[in-house]
């Protein structure tokens, strides 16, 4: 086996699992949960699952501007417990998160709860064993849990976003441990999400910096208006990040039963977006009452996003397309909203090794 390149630090540690966990913690490594030791053999096996130059820099991870080489991403994937077959998803996710439109630096350092969300679409989800059904957001599925965790560990270790240091998140979220799921295309009445975003590929990946999921339950409505009114009410919350961010997006993960109710009435994905844009609104008087120092509207608001009278209704999001609609989860009358903190998600084709 080849020796690791000189720029990678290696240590000899007591291999007792309890001692290892203590050694990791003493060095400020990890998310607090046990990790798999990233030995040469395990890292090489991980790298073999996504052929390419191990020293290729997938991105510079802020705020530390750490070099996310394939090798160091593999190290973190081993730590996370990834089976090697999901490693191509992890590398694709890191590459996508480092794109400038994602604004990872802001998400890493903010006081807000932005997490690193990963959604797997299409053939890759089934081929690699991702969960798109019951228990969508966890726990229990190895591919979901370890992929999300590997991405988080890269952001933590390589990016330096440690709580209180590089990351100033006031509260954090459980989604910071792992936040990966698959789209339930089989249960979706519409085309796959990535195709609706113009990605013509068998598999795709979406990454974003969303908050953890906010559940919406609606066990009574039998029509789209009822279901979507419930969801809209969960979006139009004065104390939420989306109410004040003005340019953000919200992912709406419709449970299959809610999706069937909506599509069964002939509604398209675009109809859902338009309805939510129209109905997820806040009263202008309430927004003004929460603006600082009687200075008028929140300075983050675009000039058009103002009212004349207190009862004028102001849309929470500035465009219907900012509602990203997909289906996920199992049976049961629940859906979820996944708001972002103001930055962009990206959807990219996902190439798997043959």
């Amino acid at each position, binding site marked *: 086996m080849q020796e*690791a390149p000189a*720029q*990678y*630090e*290696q*240590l*000899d*540690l*007591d*291999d007792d699992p309890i001692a*290892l966990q203590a050694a990791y913690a003493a*060095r400020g*490594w990890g998310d607090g949960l046990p990790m798999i*030791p*990233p*030995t*040469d053999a395990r*890292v090489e096996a991980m790298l073999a699952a996504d052929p390419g130059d191990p020293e290729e820099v997938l991105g*510079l991870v802020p705020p*530390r*501007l*750490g*070099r*996310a*080489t394939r*090798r*160091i991403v593999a*190290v*973190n994937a081993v*730590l996370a417990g990834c089976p090697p077959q999901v490693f191509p998803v992890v590398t694709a996710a890191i590459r996508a998160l480092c794109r400038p439109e994602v*604004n990872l630096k*802001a998400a890493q350092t*903010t*006081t807000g709860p932005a997490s690193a969300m990963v959604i797997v679409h299409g053939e890759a989800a089934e081929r690699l064993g991702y969960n798109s059904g019951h228990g969508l957001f966890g726990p229990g599925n190895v591919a979901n849990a370890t992929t999300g965790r590997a991405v988080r*560990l890269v952001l933590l*270790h*390589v990016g*330096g976003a440690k709580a209180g240091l590089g990351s*100033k998140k006031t509260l954090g979220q459980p989604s910071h441990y792992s936040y990966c799921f698959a789209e339930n295309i089989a249960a979706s009445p519409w085309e796959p999400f990535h195709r609706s975003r113009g990605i013509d590929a068998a598999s795709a990946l979406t990454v974003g910096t969303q908050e953890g999921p906010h559940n919406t339950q609606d066990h009574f409505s039998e029509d789209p208006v009822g279901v979507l009114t419930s969801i809209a009410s969960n979006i139009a919350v004065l104390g939420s990040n989306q109410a004040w961010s003005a*340019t953000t997006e919200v992912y709406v993960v419709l449970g299959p039963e809610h999706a069937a109710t909506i599509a069964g009435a002939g509604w398209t994905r675009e109809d859902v977006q338009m309805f939510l844009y129209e109905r997820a609104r806040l009263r202008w008087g309430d927004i003004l009452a929460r*603006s*600082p*120092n009687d*200075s008028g509207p*929140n*300075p*983050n608001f675009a000039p058009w996003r103002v009212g004349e009278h207190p009862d004028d209704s102001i849309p929470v999001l500035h465009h219907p397309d900012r509602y990203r609609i997909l289906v996920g989860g199992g049976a049961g009358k629940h859906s979820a909203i996944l708001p972002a*903190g*103001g*930055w962009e998600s990206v959807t990219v084709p996902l190439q798997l090794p043959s």
Partner: protein
Amino acid sequence: MVRIYAPEGTAEAQALTVHPLPPAGPALRIGILHNNKANAGVLLTTLAEQMAARLGGAAPVLTSKGRASLPAPVGEVARLAAEVDLVLVGTAD
């Protein structure tokens, strides 16, 4: 014993040039780069106005990033650099 990789890897080194502070006095031109957060404007404006008052200088020049989470537009930074000697910036909430 087990030999393992450290998980952090290397980082890009950033070379930053720190300029000396301009001399304090009535000629000091002060600017504010407001980050659009709710309290930043109040804090920065109050601070800048008090500085200007103590030094006997002109009122501060106020400009805004537009969005808190994105860098300031290049043009705005250039304009400020031409108009002032010292800029107060908002880096938090």
